[in-house]
């Protein structure tokens, strides 16, 4: 295995994040607050668990019949006057989008939130082609100005404090130095964004749900920026992963009830906008993107990660995410769901992510579509080790451990030796190269093991 190419992994990024404990505390509390809001919202729905089960089953049905639903969607959307494109890869997606923009002869577009375009690195691609993309969600705009990737799929700038946002706006938008009042900063961003909205004739959005039955797409936002962008533009480009399909409009209610409650604890997003057909004179494009999804669909072990509705609840609940920050995952989608999605795109690059978990299982139980996230993390670990993307030292250690633990007399002997070492030669383990010892004392070794006690007190004693 080649370890040279390795970029900073989750553990070292998380360790850097933890150098500022106050910041970790703040990050943890901010996200835990969102998790608690989610709990309150969920408890207001007595049939919450039933809703989760229904949503899970509908998504199972979608994954098992994806081909047919996609064809149905394409047919319906086309008959509604929407132009449907198919992209097998991120590259194809970017090319299709660029081609549409190029034909319109514009050099700037407005974009509302789309994790898919993050996944495809569309902004960077378009920038190279001379197209300026203005992110119009408040949080996305902040990370765009900071030239950072989002750290959370729903709350992209959750890692930034309002004072830092104030400084950023001072630099880029000319707000007074030292201003950090959120209402003031939001107004400044709004005023700036409005200029871009007014002059952009192409608007790009993501898609939360695409209804096969009607050929419509649904976009959920809190800020109304998707609507503003689309209504002011002559051309609407909507980009979606092929798994965003739901069979019928009547199923939407289940997902809309689950989505916002799981994401932020709101009963529903402020705007749930349906786009079924272009208004007179407008062009609407939908780009259906595979980018590894049909490959994942083949895998029994990992396919149901495709059920994800991108609510971010698994991030808010994850005790590791809250204490390591979204950027520690070095992938567009952070947290537990990112850790099971990323390795299927590039197992080597993201080999560390499935190990960035204690397998506590909170993610799987908070997930509104019941993705078995922590079990998939476990299974990814097995796949990654089998493919050799693991530190050779760890492999050797594990082989030794396996040998010791499968031989009772060796185990007793090593155990006895270990306890003697810790007791009489504590410097062997109590030093800062032992990661346990950095912030924790070693267990105080007892004089004898249970096995020895049992031999003395029971086997021989009785």
């Amino acid at each position, binding site marked *: 295995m080649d370890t040279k190419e390795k970029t900073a992994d*989750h*553990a070292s990024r*998380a*360790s850097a994040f*933890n150098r500022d404990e106050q910041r*970790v505390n703040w990050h*943890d509390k901010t996200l*835990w607050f969102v998790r608690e809001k989610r*709990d309150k919202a969920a*408890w207001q*729905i*007595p049939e*919450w*668990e039933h809703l989760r089960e229904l949503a899970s089953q509908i998504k199972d049905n979608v994954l098992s019949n994806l081909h047919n639903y996609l064809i149905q969607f394409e047919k319906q959307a086309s008959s509604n006057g929407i132009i449907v494109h198919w992209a097998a890869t991120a590259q194809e997606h970017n090319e299709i989008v660029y081609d549409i923009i190029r034909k319109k002869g514009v050099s700037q577009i407005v974009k509302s939130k789309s994790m898919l375009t993050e996944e495809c690195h569309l902004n960077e691609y378009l920038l190279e082609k001379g197209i300026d993309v203005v992110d119009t969600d408040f949080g996305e705009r902040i990370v765009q100005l900071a030239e950072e990737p989002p750290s959370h799929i729903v709350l992209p700038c959750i890692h930034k404090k309002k004072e830092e946002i104030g400084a950023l706006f001072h630099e880029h938008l000319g707000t007074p130095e030292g201003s950090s009042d959120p209402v003031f900063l939001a107004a400044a961003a709004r005023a700036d964004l409005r200029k871009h909205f007014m002059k952009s004739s192409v608007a790009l959005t993501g898609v939360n749900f695409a209804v096969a039955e009607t050929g419509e797409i649904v976009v959920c936002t809190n800020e109304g920026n998707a609507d503003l962008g689309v209504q002011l533009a002559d051309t609407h480009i909507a980009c979606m992963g092929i798994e965003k399909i739901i069979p019928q409009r009547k199923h939407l209610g289940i997902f809309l009830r689950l989505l916002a409650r799981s994401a932020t604890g709101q009963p529903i997003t402020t705007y749930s906008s349906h786009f079924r057909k272009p208004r007179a004179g407008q062009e609407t494009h939908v780009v259906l993107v595979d980018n590894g999804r049909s490959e994942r669909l083949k895998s029994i072990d990992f396919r149901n990660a495709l059920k994800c509705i991108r609510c971010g609840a698994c991030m808010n*609940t994850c*005790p*590791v995410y809250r*204490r390591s920050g979204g950027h520690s995952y070095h992938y567009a989608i952070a947290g537990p769901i990112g850790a099971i999605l990323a390795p299927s795109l590039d197992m080597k690059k993201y080999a560390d992510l499935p*190990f960035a*978990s*204690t*397998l*506590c*299982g909170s993610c*799987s139980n908070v997930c509104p579509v019941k993705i078995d996230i922590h079990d998939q993390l*476990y299974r990814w*670990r*097995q796949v*990654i*080790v*089998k493919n050799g993307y*693991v530190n050779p030292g760890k*492999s050797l250690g*594990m*082989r030794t*451990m*396996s040998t010791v*633990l*499968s*031989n*009772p007399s060796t*185990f007793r002997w090593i*155990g006895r030796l*270990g306890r003697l070492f810790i007791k009489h030669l504590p410097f062997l383990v109590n030093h800062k190269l*032992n*990661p*346990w010892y*950095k*912030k*924790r*004392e*070693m*267990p105080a*070794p007892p004089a*004898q*093991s*249970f*096995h020895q*006690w049992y031999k003395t007190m029971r*086997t021989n004693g009785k």
Partner: protein
Amino acid sequence: MRVALFVPCYIDQFYPKVAIATLELLEKLDIQVTYPERQTCCGQPMANAGFEHLTKATNKLFIENFDKYDYIVSPSGSCVLHVKHHLHSKASEDLAHSIKNNIYELTEFLIDVLKVKKLSSWFPHSVGLHQSCHGQRGLMLSQMSEIVGPPFSKSEALLNMVGGLNLIALDRSDECCGFGGTFCVTEDAVSAKMGLDRVRDHISHGVEFITSSDMSCLMHLEGILRRLKSDVKVAHIAEILNAPA
């Protein structure tokens, strides 16, 4: 009733008192317990690190030790969960299957099988309960905060039977302690921070003891408590349930 005691490897080596308390507690409840002496480990340390393929030998040994019992009881939700989910044997899958059905975590065995309604133990202290994730979310030993459903807790039900014990409520009832097996050293910064936050929750509510049905969580929390030079102690739930009146 043939009952075997499964003592996880780290309890055997570092916390024999927990295994002794488990054995004595079961004996007080008139259960005859056998301790199969060639047992070592369930294999979880390898499997959770991605090396499940190296657990064939420990699986074989586990089956040899435990295939003759009606019940296998262990003071660790985590190890029991591992056996339930991952014990396999090409040669004798039927034996593996019956072991998976017969293995119980201690509190689960006391509540569901023995149907314990009262205990004679006495523990006059303020106690905070740390939920082990594998016990809680894996074995469903108590309701979790993520789920909209009726509350229940096997550990709490038992602790409420202990004389003098004052069970203390926490800010976060079921957040992970950050031990996580090899996670505790491969991700030591986050692991230690998670443990520190758990410990502070207990300390701020004035507990004297942190208890849990998993000693691995407590080993981690104890390491942090001792580094903080805190007076708060850890005690496995078996030690409290076995505390003499």
